[in-house]
């Protein structure tokens, strides 16, 4: 071995050992750093992926809760509105019945007025029929009244038609209108082929139908939602 002393050789060896150690340390550091980096990346990736899926699922479920709430609220409001409408219907029906009762009372308490009414109802129907022979059907309790006013009806009819039409009235004494009616007449002509009904009960129904908006406003008050009043 030329050139180097023992001390120099030892020194060189120590130097080489130090170098090996140093290299190893750097390599280990590199591996550890890489390990940490990959760990974080992988963990982060897995968590992110799963979070996104979970979030999507729950957002959908939460939206459906919102929708359900909206539907339930709408149902509640609808049910309430219907309840109110139903009540108004009940009250209106009650009002109708009261009117029928009141009309019956008026008829009972004022026979003169009723007589006048019967004449008018009969003539009104005659004028619509324009038939020469007419059978008038009334409530059983009105038969004698009707017979007593038949002639009056015939002459009023003749006057109204300026003599062009005449009529012969026969009061039906076999068939009657229901005794439960308020009153009025039912006319038949042409062998009972055509008929005209003119009872006070029909009038009440018709009046209710025609004047419903006014009646509702009177009973229930003005409707704030109403847009048209012409």
């Amino acid at each position, binding site marked *: 071995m030329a050139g180097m002393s023992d001390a120099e050789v030892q020194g060189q060896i120590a130097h080489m050992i130090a170098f090996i150690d140093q290299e190893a340390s750097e*390599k280990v550091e590199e591996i550890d750093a890489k*390990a940490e980096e990959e760990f974080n990346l992988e963990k982060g990736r897995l*968590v992110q992926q799963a979070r996104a899926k979970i979030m999507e699922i*729950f957002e959908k479920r939460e939206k459906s809760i919102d929708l359900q709430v909206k539907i339930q609220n709408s149902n509640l409001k609808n049910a309430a509105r219907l309840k109110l409408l139903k009540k108004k219907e009940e009250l209106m029906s009650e009002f109708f019945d009261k009117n029928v009762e009141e009309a019956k009372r008026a008829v009972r308490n004022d026979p003169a007025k009723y007589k006048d009414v019967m004449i008018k109802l009969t003539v009104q129907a005659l*004028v619509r029929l324009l038939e020469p022979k007419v059978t008038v059907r009334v409530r059983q309790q009105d038969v004698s009244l009707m017979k007593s006013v038949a002639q009056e009806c015939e002459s009023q009819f003749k006057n109204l038609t300026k003599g062009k039409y005449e009529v012969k009235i026969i009061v039906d004494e076999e068939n009657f209108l229901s005794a439960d009616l308020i009153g009025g007449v039912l006319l038949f002509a042409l062998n009972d082929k055509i008929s005209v009904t003119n009872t006070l009960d029909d009038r009440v129904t018709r009046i209710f139908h025609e*004047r419903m908006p006014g009646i509702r406003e009177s009973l229930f008050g003005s409707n704030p939602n109403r847009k048209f009043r012409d």
Partner: protein
Amino acid sequence: MAQKTEGIQQLLIAEKKATDRVHEARKRKAARLKTAKKEAEAEITAYKEHREKLYKNAEQAAAGKHGSAETEIAAYTNKQIVELEKNMKMQMQKSMVLVQDPLFDIDISLHENVKLN
């Protein structure tokens, strides 16, 4: 000559130690990556439970609101009904006239097409 072999021995030992250290480091790295999955799962489960709790709260809140809305609306409706009935009673007499008057007011007229010449 003895120093030469000794020197080489030392180098070999150092070399081995280095290799071992690197080897260990690699083992640590593999182990670390394995725990990534485990830790991720733990976090994910925690998040899921969190969202589940939020959802349950939302459900309960909605149910509570619905319950109170129901009572509120029922009370309001009943109030309106009471109001309606009270009103009707007050307006009854005045309203009857709207029907009774036209009922007995019978207007007799010929149909517009009837010719009387």
